């Protein structure tokens, strides 16, 4: 009816409507409660159920944690204090184990005089990643990023300052060779020289030079052996090293897997499938036991370094698969436009493809990183004293025999803070990239 009307009757508007404000939304706490918690029978039942569940958990945990005893020197002492303060049968946390042993949980067997070093190293790391994470900071800060690995190594392991400095000198040499070669020589010779010169320098010159300089000026920090690393220091060193190293390796693997070149793609596929198909703990045992057979006799290859390498190789396979998803999600037109403009393969990847593919992959990458960081606790099984390994040791000591919840709650809390920070950062980064491109 109205349709035919609309078609047969011509219409002309002769007064224009002024803009009107949108209808007012009902607000207030009561309204919110009614809308979100009690809007229907099912909703009411679920709300009550949820409140009951939260209550049961918290009513047990909160008094236990809140009444916790801090000053005691052993579990027995804790129990005595508890019996004095509370009626018999009250369950109370014994946080004293944390206040007594927190230094050990955080620093392991690091010499107490050097407790300032790991936090400073962490601070240097955080400052060094700033220019990578926040792209609008001045580019000059990137020099700090380049210097940071040597500085962090020096802070953590100590020794004379000349060891890391001569290492860095090798990198500088490589850079100089590359820059001069690029202007004058052929690309292949330049590439080979860029790799060879620093290697030869490190193998033959670096050590004597460092020793010589150390005689002249014995500046440095007390040396700390890898076996003295423990607790969260160990977890964070392994976790962050593997995170930083696995990202570039994973990206290369993802590109390799999509490559047109037969051997490159087959090798990348074989690597990814092999690494992903075997549990990390098996790889860690491999690192602990088998690598000794493969390496030349007499080389004492640091266990911690071996674990870092294994964790890196392991995480890289997962990163590769996440990044491959991002590469596949990119429209074909982007590759074609880059080709049509005459960009070569690496330019196209670096400037066009990876910035977009990595942006898509951020949630997956951070997910892998969080998983990797938590998986560092597995090193407890190969005899390293990460927080879990230390917890076992503390619980075996005469003072604290029989304690368990308190240490694990503390460890869980610290891990949660690290992982939650990573998660928040990734969400922030996604939002920011989203805004800047729309």
């Amino acid at each position, binding site marked *: 009816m109205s349709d035919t009307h609309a078609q047969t009757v011509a219409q002309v508007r002769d007064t224009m409507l002024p803009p009107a404000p949108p209808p007012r939304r009902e607000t207030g706490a009561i309204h919110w409660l009614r809308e979100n918690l009690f809007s229907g029978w099912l909703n009411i039942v679920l709300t009550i159920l949820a409140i009951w569940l939260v209550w049961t958990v918290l009513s047990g945990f909160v008094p236990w944690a809140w009444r916790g005893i801090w000053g005691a020197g052993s579990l027995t002492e804790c129990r005595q204090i508890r019996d004095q303060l509370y009626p018999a049968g009250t369950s109370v946390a014994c946080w004293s184990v944390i206040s007594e042993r927190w230094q050990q949980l955080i620093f392991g067997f690091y010499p107490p005089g050097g407790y300032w070093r790991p936090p400073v190293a962490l601070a240097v790391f955080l400052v060094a990643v700033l220019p990578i994470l926040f792209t609008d900071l001045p580019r000059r800060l990137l020099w700090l990023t380049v210097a940071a690995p040597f500085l962090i190594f020096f802070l953590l392991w100590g020794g004379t300052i000349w060891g890391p400095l001569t290492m860095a000198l090798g990198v500088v040499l490589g850079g100089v060779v590359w820059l001069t070669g690029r202007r004058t020589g052929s690309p292949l010779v330049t590439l080979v020289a860029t790799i060879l010169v620093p290697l030869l320098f490190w193998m033959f010159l670096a050590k004597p030079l460092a020793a010589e300089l150390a005689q002249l000026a014995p500046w440095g920090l007390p040396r700390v052996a890898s076996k003295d690393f423990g607790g969260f220091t160990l977890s964070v060193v392994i976790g962050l090293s593997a995170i930083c190293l696995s990202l570039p390796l994973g990206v290369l693997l993802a590109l390799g897997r999509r490559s047109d070149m037969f051997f490159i793609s087959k090798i990348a596929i074989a690597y990814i499938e092999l690494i992903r198909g075997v549990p990390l703990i098996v790889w860690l045992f491999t690192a602990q036991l088998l690598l000794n057979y493969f390496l030349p006799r007499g080389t004492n290859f640091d266990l911690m370094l071996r674990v870092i390498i294994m964790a890196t190789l392991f995480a890289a396979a997962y990163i590769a698969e996440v990044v491959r998803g991002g590469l596949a999600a990119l429209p074909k037109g982007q590759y074609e436009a880059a080709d*049509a403009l005459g960009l070569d393969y690496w330019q196209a990847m670096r400037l066009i493809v990876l910035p977009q593919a990595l942006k898509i992959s951020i949630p997956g990458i951070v997910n892998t990183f969080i998983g990797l960081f938590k998986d560092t606790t597995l090193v407890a099984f190969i005899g390293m004293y990460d927080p879990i390994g230390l917890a076992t040791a503390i619980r075996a000591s005469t003072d604290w025999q029989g304690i368990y919840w308190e240490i694990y709650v503390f460890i869980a809390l610290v891990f949660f803070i690290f992982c939650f920070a990573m998660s928040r950062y990734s969400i922030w980064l996604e939002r920011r990239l989203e805004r800047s491109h729309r």
Partner: protein
Amino acid sequence: MSDAAVPLGAVPPPVPGEVAVQITGMNKWYGQFHVLRDINLTVDRGERIVICGPSGSGKSTLIRCINRLEEHQTGQIIVDGTELTSNLRNVDKVRSEVGMVFQHFNLFPHLTVLENCTLAPIWVRKVPKREAEETAMDFLRKVRIPEQANKYPGQLSGGQQQRVAIARSLCMRPKIMLFDEPTSALDPEMIKEVLDTMIELAQEGMTMLCVTHEMGFAQAVANRVIFMDQGQIVEQNTPREFFNNPQSERTKLFLSQILGH
């Protein structure tokens, strides 16, 4: 298919004898499917060629062979004196001399308009950044969107995006421009702004190969129209002869469909 009246400017004549693109006996297959069959085509410098034909006739494939986004299997393609073979150096050289505008623009969404335009000059031609930005602003002014330079492509209309894409190609100062249906993804009111830009380009003597169904554009600036069907060049002629006096039955059928007679 809006054959809107396009202003006919003074289009300079092509330079006979100076060859921009030479294709001889070229064939291409997709698996078993013979998509381009014995293509022979010589394009002189300054020529403006419009390629038309039914869907699936191989028009896109043909112009994508000219900058080797697609590989041909037999025959020869020489672009600006460089033969296209599997030699990557030649391919990159040709690609930096040949600009291409796509149906779906293919701008880089993570870069601003200005960065889209300066990227290739800076990285491929090694032009200093400042100079590349000045050139880019010149070309953005030319396509009449200098005020959008710092926006991202996602913030522009389709017609504006396509004009940015044209400016991006021009920043490389190409000798030849390829267009693959540059207006078919656009709303009618945006088609004209893109066509006007292309006409200006033709008036400056750019060598152009355009796949398009804009017959008004063909009549205004093309000096040759090529009709393709089933992977072959069926007919080519001046626009006047092509539209008024088509020779082959296929051409007549196609024209009657496209011009809606």
